[in-house]
């Protein structure tokens, strides 16, 4: 080693054999110790800057009305009020829509289009004062006819975005010539995200026109974009930062724009820092939710249960603006096949405009609604033929090398659903349990059991191709410690942990060496939403690219200085081997610094192979597919419609997992969230378009006792992504949510028992106890078994 590069660091020990926190290891969430001690800082916990003001939104009380006048004089005169802002105070565009279509004002001015639409903002010394002052506004409305649900929207026929059609072959001819045909309609409700941390933003004005916004958002770059448009300043004047969110689930992909833009506007106008945090009830009334859908289907099939032709029309309640309803309804169509091959198929979407809150992204992004419809069709065929629905499912699975083209003309190249389902069918004892359940039901008039196995095949990539890019920024300091930043956001899913594992793996250093830092538009620009399950795929690859740039420089430096070939330089756990010599990674960093080697690099990644032509309905929107399946067993009380989930077995494909324990957490949590959507979570609007389930007292997400009594969750073994993803792992954020569909169809199976499984139960979602009881009563009436013998004579 040349003398000039003398180092204070001792040489590495030969005993170092492994890297703690490298990829494919169980690794706890990077913030776990701070979560449990209350030290993890969320936006509302940030140290408050001196002079902070608090803002609160004034909301529309009508679903659809012209605003004749809005009297804010009492609001302005209320104690503590510093400013009251309306659309007139917006220097730039009064539009916060994700796609800048001009259909989603920050503040409604002349027209209100849903109850809870923001009309003005009060800025006051305290949040309590701002909130009280809001109630003093007097609006004079001229009421217009509201369109509140899908039934009314069907008639009105107005769309928020152009629908899409996927077509392959001649579906109507195939249905007409099929030996068996049926048609029907399935309805499913929406879902509130119920992130535990509500929406929040804190804006701090800077020099000139600058503003820094701490926003609980999945999409800092879009918040930056929207704030810059609202303030009429260039993007370089706006910095958006988020260290972590207290849950998001898609609800902070576009919905955080409003709160950030309003806070930034108030900061601009008052010249003081401003925080905006709505109360939970207001949050739920202001922000969009998962779309409720009605799907009209017609299918032709043969006596073996094989689908020959199918048509489906997907009607979605989108609310008053487009938001991302276009891509969401598209994704519903992309998943209307679930795991099934449709020989001849036509699928269309109708993103309907309504005078309700603008529905938005939610884990699965339309995919779950597509799959619920696919599984209803399967169930209908099974009842028509007297088959086990599982056999109908298997009869229609995508093939290998044949029967493998989707309705959007992408070939399914990585199909493993048949292998996965067979494994789960055996490991869960599905067939034996199904027989046992039938026997149980025969002896139990009141409590009936049901079981269902449903598969999931979920396409991974944003269908908006430009979103499939990511950037990262990695610094190695001259003490060997590493600073990691990327465009992805942490909402609990463990993205920061996984990307840090990638960096640890690349440099072969313990993960403790890697400092994970807050996402900020100032470090990594033009980032995509952390959404579409793509966080690790995109940001992991981008961080890897940054690490590799630095590694290449280190290798070149070492080769030159030690006079060895580049392939004689090797990153080993905690150290670097150069020829026959080994030094610590820290020593290498120091030596490289002394030799003026740049130790900071950006990394970039774009997903290969994908392309999509929406107008034609053709392309390869997805890089690959993630697969899974679940078996759910339930017991239903036939007198009340109440139920419990007795047992769930899941087998899920995460490729070669970056972090199996975190992936398992995503699967368990996603399943329960999907189950909640289809069972107890009911959004209920009254006749005036007011959401009446706007808090946890009325909107019920699963509680601890609702989890499956027995819950067996396994990752598919020997699974390796067929595509070259980050260490051959697969995305895991969204796909498991759709495993919850098995609960709906298990309930359906239990319901069907009251008519001896002779009639299709057609249980719509959410399957609240009320809906379950209604289905039971309807089947009993149709089967003529309305007076069951309940007790021994």
């Amino acid at each position: 080693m040349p003398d000039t590069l003398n180092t204070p660091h001792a040489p590495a020990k030969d005993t170092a054999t492994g890297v703690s926190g490298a990829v494919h290891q169980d690794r706890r969430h990077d913030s776990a110790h701070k979560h449990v001690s209350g030290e993890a800082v969320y936006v509302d916990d940030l140290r408050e800057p001196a002079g902070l003001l608090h803002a609160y939104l004034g909301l529309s009380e009508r679903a659809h009305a012209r605003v004749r006048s809005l009297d804010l004089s009492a609001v302005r005169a209320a104690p503590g009020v510093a400013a009251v802002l309306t659309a007139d105070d917006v220097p730039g565009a009064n539009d916060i829509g994700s796609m800048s279509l001009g259909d989603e004002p920050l503040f409604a001015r002349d027209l209100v289009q849903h109850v809870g639409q923001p009309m003005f903002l009060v800025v006051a010394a305290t949040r309590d004062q701002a909130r009280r002052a809001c109630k003093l506004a007097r609006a004079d409305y001229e009421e217009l006819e509201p369109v509140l649900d899908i039934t009314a929207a069907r008639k009105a026929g107005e769309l928020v975005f152009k629908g899409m059609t996927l077509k392959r072959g001649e579906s109507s001819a195939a249905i007409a010539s099929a030996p068996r045909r049926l048609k029907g309609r399935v309805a499913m409700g929406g879902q509130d995200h119920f992130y535990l941390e509500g929406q929040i933003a804190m804006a701090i004005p800077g020099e000139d026109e600058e503003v820094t916004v701490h926003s609980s958002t999945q999409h800092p770059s879009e918040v930056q974009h929207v704030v810059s448009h609202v303030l009429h300043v260039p993007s370089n004047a706006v910095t958006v930062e988020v260290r972590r969110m207290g849950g998001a689930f898609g609800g902070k992909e576009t919905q955080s724009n409003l709160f950030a833009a309003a806070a930034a506007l108030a900061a601009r106008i008052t010249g003081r820092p401003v925080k905006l945090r709505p109360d939970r009830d207001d949050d739920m009334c202001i922000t969009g939710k998962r779309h409720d859908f009605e799907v009209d289907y017609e299918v032709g099939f043969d006596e073996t249960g094989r689908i020959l032709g199918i048509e489906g029309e997907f009607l979605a309640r989108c609310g008053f603006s487009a938001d991302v309803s276009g891509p969401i309804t598209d994704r519903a169509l992309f998943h209307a096949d679930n795991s099934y091959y449709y020989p001849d198929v036509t699928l269309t979407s109708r993103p309907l405009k309504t005078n309700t809150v603008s529905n938005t992204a939610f884990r699965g992004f339309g995919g779950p609604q597509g799959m619920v419809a696919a599984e209803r069709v399967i169930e209908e065929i099974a009842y028509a033929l007297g088959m086990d629905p599982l056999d109908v499912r298997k009869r229609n699975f995508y093939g290998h090398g044949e029967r493998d083209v989707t309705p959007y003309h992408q070939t399914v190249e990585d199909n493993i659903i048949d292998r996965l389902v067979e494994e789960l069918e055996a490991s869960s004892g599905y067939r034996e349990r199904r027989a046992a359940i039938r026997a149980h039901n025969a002896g139990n008039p009141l409590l009936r059991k049901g079981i269902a196995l449903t598969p999931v095949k979920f396409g991974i990539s944003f269908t908006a191709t430009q979103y499939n890019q990511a950037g990262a920024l990695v610094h190695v300091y001259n003490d060997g410690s590493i600073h990691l930043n990327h465009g992805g956001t942490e909402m609990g899913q463990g993205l920061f942990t996984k990307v840090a594992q990638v960096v640890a793996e690349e440099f072969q250093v313990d993960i403790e060496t890697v400092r994970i830092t807050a996402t900020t538009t100032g470090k990594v620009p033009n980032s995509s939403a952390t959404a579409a399950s793509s966080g690790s795929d995109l940001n992991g690859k981008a961080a890897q690219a940054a690490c590799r740039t630095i590694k290449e420089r280190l290798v070149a430096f070492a080769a030159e200085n030690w006079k060895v070939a580049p392939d004689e330089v090797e990153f080993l756990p905690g150290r670097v081997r150069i020829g026959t010599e080994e030094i610590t990674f820290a020593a290498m960093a120091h030596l490289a610094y002394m030799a003026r080697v740049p130790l900071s690099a950006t990394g970039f990644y774009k997903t290969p192979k994908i392309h999509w032509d929406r107008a034609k309905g053709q392309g390869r929107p997805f890089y690959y597919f993630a697969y899974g399946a679940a078996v759910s067993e339930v017991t239903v009380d036939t007198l009340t419609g109440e139920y419990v989930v007795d047992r769930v077995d899941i087998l899920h494909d995460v490729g070669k997992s970056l972090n199996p324990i975190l992936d398992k957490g995503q699967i368990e949590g996603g399943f329960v969230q999907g189950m909640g959507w289809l069972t107890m979570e009911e959004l209920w609007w009254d006749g005036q378009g007011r959401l009446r389930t706007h808090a946890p007292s009325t909107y019920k997400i699963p509680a601890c006792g609702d989890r499956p009594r027995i819950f067996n969750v396994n990752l598919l073994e020997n699974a390796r992504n067929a595509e070259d993803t980050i260490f051959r792992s697969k995305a895991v954020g969204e796909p498991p949510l759709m495993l919850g569909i098995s609960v709906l169809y298990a309930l359906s199976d239990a319901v069907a028992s009251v008519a001896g499984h002779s009639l299709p139960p057609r249980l719509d979602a959410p399957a609240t106890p009320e809906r379950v009881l209604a289905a039971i009563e309807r089947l009993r009436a149709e089967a003529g078994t309305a007076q069951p013998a309940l007790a021994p004579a």
Partner: protein
Amino acid sequence: MRTSIRFLFGDELREIGEVDPTLTVLDWLRLQERRTGTKEGCAEGDCGACTVVVGRLDGERVRYEAVNACIRFLPTLDGCQILTVEHLKDAAGRLHPTQQAMVDCHGSQCGFCTPGFVMSLFALYHGAANPDGQAIDDALAGNLCRCTGYAPIVKAAEALCEGRDGAPADRFAAEEAAIAAKLKALQDQEMVSVGSGGRVFHAPATAAQMAQLLLDNPDATIVSGATDVGLWVTKFQRVLGTVVHTGRVAELRGIRETEAGLEIGAAVTYTEAAPAIAALYPDFGELIRRIGATQVRNMGTIGGNVANGSPIGDTPPALIAAGATLVLRRGDERRSMPVEDFYIDYGKQDRRPGEFVESILLPRPAAGARFRAYKISKRFDQDISALCGAFLLTVERGTVTAVRLAYGGMAGIPKRAAAAEAALAGQPWTEATVRRAMAALSQDFTPLSDMRASAEYRARVAANLLMKLYVETTDPAAETRLVGDRSLAHA
């Protein structure tokens, strides 16, 4: 009279003279103390993110209870200890066993609900030994998590309780005597009055003080656990003038067992009342297990539930079915009435100005009488009933000799089903009789449709619950229950 409130914050004594009578514990923590570990998730006591633990003197011991800081008024914790998630690490900065179990079992994802879960687990850790699965579920039922699906949190709870070896072994256990002594020093018989400018919080120490206060302030708002009044403040931003807290009144805090039954003081919490009530009416105990969740049951009182007059409160139907009576006091005058007579109309009770509910008398069930209560909601735990049916039935030699049927959620008030009772009384206890009673219910009730259920569902299930009662009382082998102690169906 004392004009300040005093409590322990951790082991530190706090004495506050100027305090808003309805300042919530959460706002005090987050806004005044800037202790931001405790989170606001809903501000209505339904999500548990704000859970803190309250230590109360219990003889020589300290009893730790999880409560919702978001709807608990700070002055109501006079004489108590408040523990938040920030108090749990030891002096060396090591995580508390509850915190470590959550880390080890991967019980946090986004982490926002986690401090609340940690505090519920802390209360569990300091609670009864060897909790079973149901006890663990009950301890966690008031904490919502949207990320994990709960499995790893339950695993953490199991690991924690297994690792406890009978008794808790943390510094709070080690310092219990010292904390008890500090709490003891805070107990007095003084009336506490804090506040000014027409906004005053009173916490009388005796029933006589309470009675006089209400004579002097007939418009005062009486607050016990604030599980409803808390929402008036956090959701409707109501400004309450004079607040009278029942929680320090010794006479209202006791349960007396007499020949006739139980005399339950109005300020006895659900948690405190449950064992005694369950001993007389096992299924009433099961109903209480389903009211709110642990935090709410640690705050809410039977007296408050009755006096509040909500048509969807769960104890009134059960009390009515059991034939309970209510004792009202005004000054030194007392009067009593059957619980059902207290309810006049929606939002209107037979409570005179200056009067307060002093106690509830729950009679022992007659020999051979069977009591059943059924709470119907979208979710089993921490949910408000769509409807609730409570029944007391005596069948002798195959004939119904006594019957009381009471429902909540079916009318503007909790109410007996007179027509259905008439259809059963004196009749043979057969399926045909039950079906006649089911049909008669339509004369008793015209329920409403709302976000919890439609009128049709309420009417149908109200009737079906009579069938459930019939099956449970006639077929000892029938499986009828999905949750709770299944043996109660045939008790």
